[in-house]
């Protein structure tokens, strides 16, 4: 803005100077005209006087000759006497006049210096030539003034002088006249030239002013145009709607182009906001909004103190005729425009916040979907009631513990971290068992809890507020468990189904789980379960089959079994084989083995991974024997799956098994041949 202002001031200064110059020039020409006309008048009177010199010299000569004749003839000479006096006086007067006008003004001298010198010389010559005549005539005039006849001798002298000098005097007077005439002509020419020049200058100046003025005018026009274009451009490109709401309730003509898009309709000049809004939102919203707008026009209301009450902060647009579209949401913001304390208009900005609202809705929608899963629950209910009850007892006890843990937890990062770890293990078990039993919805809820826990694990500083989602997810899981118990009780009431051998039932669950896991991971698997009939299923075995075996089978599918292509290349059948065997051993033990014909456990590959995961240094792994390396699989947090899905990759499976085995007093053996098989054998008291 600053340079523009400077340029404008300079423009104005130039214009003012030009106009001043124009006035000065015009005034100069006017003054010069005065001078010039005065000079021409003076020149004219000088030329006249000069002419008179010639005429009176002639007249005087004639009168003096007459006088001489009359004196000689003794005749009265009144007539000639009067003529002489008159001629003499007139001649003297003209001569005096000419000499008096000699030293006019300095300007004249400046303009025609040489010519004036010459004029003075010529005049001097006349005067010098006249001087003797004047002297000779003096006695005659003197006598005549006393009314006595002049002395004839005097007359004679005068006559002689006059006759002798008249011609020359006339000649001199003539020269003077001619010179004066020339001088007058010259100075007239000169004056005209000066006048023309001055007028030309004034005209040029005038043209300059006009030019300058027009240019300045055009410049300011251009600037105004540019400003207008700029405003329009801004209004056209603004994504938000922007308009002025006038006091009379009409929408101002200056508004952003996006407004019509936001409102999805054309706007006419002078249209009323109430009408426009009425067509956009529900009648109720519109009426509250107009009340709010009306309040903002009260001069006493401070707009800044009313923002919290804006009813159009987030408003849903009513569906238009075509209807099918998703509901759009707009946000209006109002600012008071005041002049001298009075609210003259409201500056209204409009944003489309549909996206924001949609995202919020989507979050809610995901939950809706989860609700539909209750239907699936019913379908999955052809389960063995004993298994469901066992599962529910264990899962609900764990959940209760988890909730109690949440209730008791101390507000310290350490306590939070410990609790999160405990809960992680607990929920992972529930998830595994739910998957095993085919309760997809419970498995998903458990997975959700696991997700929340994972998020908390990854956070540096956990605070109590972060636990809210965990409590909610845990509650959702508990509610699913409650529902399952309700429904299973009902189902049990109706059904008189024969109950399967418990071991058989447990193995069927393992089989079902294996197939589902394989399907989820798009792997082909042939499952085989071999069980020696047992007189009873000890609780420890039951728990192994429910919690540990599924993890091992899962690991076999995820890590062991290769893709069909890879298997064919290795000369194996396309489908991987997994076998679970339950058999009694000596010393009152029962062995449960999980065998697969996958890629086996390669100690060197594990060494690599241990280093890559940063768990061990190169030197450390080099010093470990293969047994020690394989044992690392059972350390917390070790995982070799690349993507996190609900089947693996959380790094919990095997360390969970180890914890379980410790609790049950069971032992574990691993045997494997790279590229051929892996076999986990669990030994538990019968």
């Amino acid at each position, binding site marked *: 803005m600053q340079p523009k202002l400077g340029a404008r001031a300079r423009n104005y200064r130039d214009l003012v100077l030009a106009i001043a110059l124009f006035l000065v020039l015009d005034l100069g020409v006017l003054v010069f005209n005065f001078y010039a006309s005065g000079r021409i008048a003076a020149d004219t009177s000088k030329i006249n006087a000069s002419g008179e010199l010639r005429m009176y010299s002639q007249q005087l000569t004639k009168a003096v000759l007459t006088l001489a004749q009359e004196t000689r003839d003794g005749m009265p000479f009144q007539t000639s006497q009067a003529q002489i006096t008159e001629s003499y006086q007139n001649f003297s007067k003209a001569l005096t006049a000419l000499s008096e006008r000699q030293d006019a003004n300095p300007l004249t001298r400046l303009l025609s210096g040489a010519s004036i010198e010459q004029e003075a010389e010529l005049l001097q010559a006349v005067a010098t030539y006249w001087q003797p005549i004047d002297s000779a005539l003096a006695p005659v005039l003197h006598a005549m003034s006393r009314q006595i006849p002049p002395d004839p001798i005097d007359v004679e002298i005068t006559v002689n002088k006059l006759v002798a000098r008249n011609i020359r005097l006339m000649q001199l007077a003539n020269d003077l006249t001619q010179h004066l005439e020339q001088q007058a002509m010259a100075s007239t020419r000169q004056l005209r030239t000066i006048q023309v020049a001055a007028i030309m200058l004034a005209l040029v100046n005038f043209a300059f002013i006009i030019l300058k003025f027009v240019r300045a005018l055009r410049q300011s026009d251009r600037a105004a145009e540019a400003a207008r274009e700029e405003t329009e451009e801004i209004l056209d490109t603004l994504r938000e709607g922007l308009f002025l709401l006038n006091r009379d309730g009409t929408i101002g003509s200056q508004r952003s182009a996006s407004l019509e898009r936001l409102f999805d309709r054309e706007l006419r000049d002078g249209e009323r906001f109430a009408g426009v809004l009425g067509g956009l939102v529900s009648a109720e919203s519109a009426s*509250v909004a107009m*009340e*709010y707008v*009306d*309040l903002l026009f009260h001069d*006493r*209301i*401070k707009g*800044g*103190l*009313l923002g*919290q*009450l*804006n*009813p159009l902060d987030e408003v849903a647009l009513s569906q238009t005729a075509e209807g099918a579209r998703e509901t759009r949401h707009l946000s209006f913001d109002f600012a008071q425009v005041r002049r001298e304390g009075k609210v003259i208009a409201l500056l209204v900005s409009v944003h489309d916040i549909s996206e924001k609202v949609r995202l919020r809705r989507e979050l809610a929608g995901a939950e809706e979907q989860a609700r539909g899963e209750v239907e699936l629950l019913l379908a999955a209910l052809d389960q063995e009631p004993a298994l469901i009850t066992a599962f529910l007892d264990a899962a609900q006890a764990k959940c209760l513990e988890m909730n109690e843990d949440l209730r008791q937890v101390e507000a310290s990062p350490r306590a939070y971290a410990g609790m999160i770890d405990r809960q992680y293990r607990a929920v992972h078990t529930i998830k595994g068992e739910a998957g095993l039993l085919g309760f997809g919805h419970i498995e998903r809820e458990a997975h959700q809890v696991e997700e929340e826990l994972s998020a908390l694990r990854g956070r540096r500083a956990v605070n109590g507020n972060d636990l809210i989602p965990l409590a909610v997810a845990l509650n959702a899981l508990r509610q699913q468990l409650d529902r399952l118990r309700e429904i299973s009780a009902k189902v049990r009431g109706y059904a008189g189904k024969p109950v399967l051998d418990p071991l058989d039932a447990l193995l069927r669950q393992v089989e079902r789980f294996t197939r589902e896991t394989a399907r989820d991971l798009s792997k082909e698997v042939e499952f085989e379960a071999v069980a020696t009939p047992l007189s009873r299923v000890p609780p420890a075995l039951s728990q192994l089959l429910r919690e540990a075996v599924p993890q091992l089978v899962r690991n076999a599918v995820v890590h062991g079994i290769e893709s069909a292509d890879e298997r064919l290349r290795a000369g194996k059948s396309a489908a991987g084989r997994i076998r679970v065997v339950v058999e009694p051993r000596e010393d009152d033990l029962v062995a449960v083995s999980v065998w697969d014909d996958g890629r086996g456990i390669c100690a060197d590959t594990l060494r690599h991974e241990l280093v890559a995961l940063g768990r061990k240094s190169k030197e450390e792994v080099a010093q470990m024997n293969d047994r020690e390396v394989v044992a690392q699989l059972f350390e917390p947090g070790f995982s070799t799956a690349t993507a996190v899905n609900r089947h693996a990759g959380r790094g919990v499976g095997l360390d969970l098994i180890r914890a379980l085995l410790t609790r049950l007093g069971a032992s574990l053996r691993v045997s494997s041949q790279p590229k051929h098989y892996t076999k986990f054998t669990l030994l538990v008291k019968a």
Partner: protein
Amino acid sequence: MKLLIVDDSMVMRNHIARLSSDGSLPEVEIVGLAANGRDAVAQARRRGPDCITMDLTMPEMDGEACIGELARLLPRARILVVSALSDKATALRAIRRGAHGFVHKPFTEEQLRQALRELMS
């Protein structure tokens, strides 16, 4: 600036009083504390406050009625509604009765002071 504080919670009254009289708003002079609308009108009549902070949900003449009464009684007084109420239509109706601004509860000390400053400007 004479200030009248109207709120049914004594603690809230005292809180607002303390915030506006601790020197941060030197022009404010508290002339009264009222616990309900009726009391507010009575005090306003006696003390002629310039500014009034007004809760909306109160026993014995609620804020809305009270604002109408006060605006009639003291047309020059400025009224700031201080409320946790977010039923916008009700709040707007109350303000229409003659209030000048709205502050949402809970407020920070600075929020309230800023609102009072704006109210008095």
